[in-house]
């Protein structure tokens, strides 16, 4: 059995930031366990720029952003094991991991940070009818083939889902000489950033079809085409609007799911909306000393926010290890009327910090107001010119406000259109 103060599960942007922050705050022995062969997580294949505008004030590519944290890690005594998969986190924070070199590892940790990231929703979850031919893949898988392995995953492409990964891949494939025929989006609005719609689709004349989905795939061996159809307000395909589009590749960019199998197996309950663990203001889960941050907690759109959140978790873990973390009576947060969820889900009343409540809305709003209230009393409100589901929002609660709320109070956050 090895002993570490802190075990960080995952060496992507979340894990690296949490480890560094914990080290800065006096945690002596830290180990980062990463399942891939290099640190950096999904950033390694996100070769486009747009990362780091908030955190570094520069526009970096994914590998560059990750590279900066890798450099920072190199300058510390934090241990890193790559190509290492965590299999289990048992009661008492005993972490079981496995790799080729060490075989089976058992590590006793004082605290654990979960930073496993997220995965893409696969085709099966969509119930698209048709054949099981090859050529249907998630946009992320295609991205790995092109950017890491250096192979073309297809030549004539239809993309389903206008999340940012889908948009980015539309441009990427076009630059590599493929014909991207269209991007279909089930919703009446795109889940991606405007900038990506302009620079990844409009620049190349790729049509974005809103309220449209793929209803069938065709082809015996490799994909030969798809049938698309318009959808009604209930998102159901409208009969008679079907259209055949020939293509050899269907890329899916239909949502991300936090990768919480480890968390679930260790007995953590997940938030039904975020699919991540429920946490307090320092991102401590319902298991003492187990923290979570980054996309395993909630799917982010900007890596800069992942870093910010992970630093909170790293600081929280440091406080926990040093016995300085406040725990006790809590107040709870709840998103209502258009606010889909809030992270953190609970706040210690006696907390030593102001707390940002992060959330997403369920629809597009113009000139709306975010209202935070407790027991019918408004705590604060914030005007927003635009709110959309694709962008994470936040409001900040002052420590002084939190400490005055009664124990078990519920803080509601809602949209006023």
């Amino acid at each position, binding site marked *: 059995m090895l002993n570490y103060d802190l075990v960080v599960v995952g060496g992507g942007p979340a894990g690296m930031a949490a480890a560094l922050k914990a080290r800065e705050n006096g945690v002596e022995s830290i180990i980062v366990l990463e399942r891939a062969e290099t640190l950096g997580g999904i950033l390694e294949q996100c*070769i*486009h720029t747009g990362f780091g505008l908030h955190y570094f004030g520069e526009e970096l590519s994914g590998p560059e952003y990750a*590279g900066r944290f890798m450099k920072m890690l190199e300058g510390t005594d934090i241990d890193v094991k790559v190509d290492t998969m965590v299999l289990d986190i048992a009661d008492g924070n005993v972490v079981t991991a496995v790799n080729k070199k060490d075989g089976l590892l058992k590590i006793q940790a004082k605290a654990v940070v979960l930073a496993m990231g997220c995965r893409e929703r696969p085709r099966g979850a969509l119930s698209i009818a048709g054949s099981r031919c090859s050529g249907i893949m998630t946009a992320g898988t295609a991205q790995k083939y092109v950017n*890491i392995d250096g192979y073309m995953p297809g030549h004539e492409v239809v993309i389903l889902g206008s999340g940012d990964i889908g948009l980015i891949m539309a441009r990427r494939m076009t630059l*590599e000489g493929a014909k991207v025929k269209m991007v279909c989006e089930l919703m009446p609005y795109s889940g991606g950033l*405007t900038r990506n719609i*302009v620079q990844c689709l409009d620049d190349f004349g790729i049509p974005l079809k809103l309220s449209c989905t793929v209803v069938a795939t065709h082809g015996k061996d490799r994909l030969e085409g798809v049938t698309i159809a318009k959808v009604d307000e209930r998102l159901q395909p409208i009969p008679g609007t079907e259209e055949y589009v020939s293509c050899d590749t269907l890329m899916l960019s239909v949502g991300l799911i936090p990768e919480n199998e480890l968390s679930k197996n260790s007995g953590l309950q997940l938030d039904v909306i975020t699919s991540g663990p429920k946490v307090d203001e320092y991102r401590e889960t319902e298991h003492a000393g187990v923290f979570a941050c980054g996309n395993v907690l909630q799917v982010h759109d900007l890596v800069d926010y992942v870093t910010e959140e992970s630093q909170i978790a790293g600081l929280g873990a440091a406080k926990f290890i040093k016995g300085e973390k406040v725990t006790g009576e809590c107040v709870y947060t709840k998103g209502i009327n258009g606010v889909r969820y809030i992270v953190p889900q609970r706040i210690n009343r006696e907390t030593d910090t102001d707390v940002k409540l992060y959330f997403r809305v369920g629809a597009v709003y113009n000139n709306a107001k975010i209202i935070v209230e407790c027991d019918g009393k408004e705590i604060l409100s914030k005007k927003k*010119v635009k709110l959309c589901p694709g962008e994470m929002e936040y409001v900040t609660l002052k420590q002084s406000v939190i400490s005055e709320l009664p124990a078990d109070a519920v803080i509601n956050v809602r949209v006023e259109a």
Partner: protein
Amino acid sequence: MEKRELVCVACPLGCPITVTFDADGNVESVTGNTCKRGDAYARTEVTNPTRMLTTTVKVEGGKAYVVPVKSANPIPKGMMFDCMEIINKASIKAPVNIGDVVVENILGTGVDIIATNYAE
């Protein structure tokens, strides 16, 4: 009078902007924007639109087959495919460091193509 419709990308608001040109093709007015940044974006976008270019380049003698690269600064939007052709023919010897120049002053734009990751 010629008009062009744009969606502003300066911030997440995504204002619909209309740029009107005079008879000589010069910008006469910018409307629809809600801030100064929108005005500036629209004027650049219709006169000299530029883009960051990111792709990969072949690695020689390394473990990885390709390494990601970017244009050190934005290049003219219309030159993206021409630049891709040059980059597709180029290669870089391993080991590669972030910032290594792969193609200098690509097509006379004054912009270098540089590596954005390590490659052993």
